[in-house]
């Protein structure tokens, strides 16, 4: 099955980013394709490469980077939401990309499921 994920909250402050990641991992383990993770609202804050949590904590941006590199999951941040919140190509992780809401529409059309996580 081809699955898209919409993530609406930033890292650490809400559990949404963690649940979305665990869900994506489990979907891949079950043999599904996770087509894309689209970041909206504060969700765009997930892809800043400046994130530097304590060593014994999870690194949320690296998780997304890894999903992109290992499993070809597109990690996409909405450009309008990103601009408001100070996310741009200077700060984004390698595996992330800034794009428009048209891309989300394409994802909604081409995937079998679109699953939303947020607050």
């Amino acid at each position, binding site marked *: 099955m081809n699955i898209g994920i*919409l993530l*609406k909250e930033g890292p650490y402050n809400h559990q949404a980013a963690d649940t979305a990641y665990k869900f994506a991992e489990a979907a891949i383990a079950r043999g599904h394709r996770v087509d894309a993770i689209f970041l*909206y*609202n504060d969700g765009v804050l997930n892809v800043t490469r400046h994130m530097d949590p304590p060593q014994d904590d999870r690194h949320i941006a690296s998780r997304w980077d890894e999903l992109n590199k290992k499993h070809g999951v597109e990690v996409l941040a909405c450009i*309008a*939401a990103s601009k408001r919140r100070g996310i741009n190509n200077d700060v984004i992780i390698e595996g992330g990309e800034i794009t*428009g*809401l*048209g891309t*989300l*529409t394409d994802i*909604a*059309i081409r995937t079998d499921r*679109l699953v*939303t996580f*947020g607050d």
Partner: protein
Amino acid sequence: MSDANNNVRKIMHVMRHAPHGKIYTYEGLEMILIMAAYEQDLSVVFIGDGVFALKKGQETAGIGIKGFAKTFMALEGYDVEKLYADADSLAERGLTPDDLLVDVKVLDSYEIGALMNEQDVIIPH
């Protein structure tokens, strides 16, 4: 259904938050306006405090935030005509269709639940 419509998806946007306190309704509306260009079968449903987004007379100058209530009036021009509001949510908040900026179809929760079950995608805002 004609072949040309095979790729048309039923996408419902659910507005459940009051405007201004959080950005969800505003950025939700931005999303709907973009999606409208893709000729999908869009609907927008207002539930709970989401119905407050449509209230007439919102003047946001004092809080320094751009108002957007009137943008809902533009949806019709983008062929987004399936606007629904939950009857109980309106009643609990003492609102009638006359209090709202746009024409919405008022449905009961059973009817909205049935519509939800027809969707290919539901996006909460």
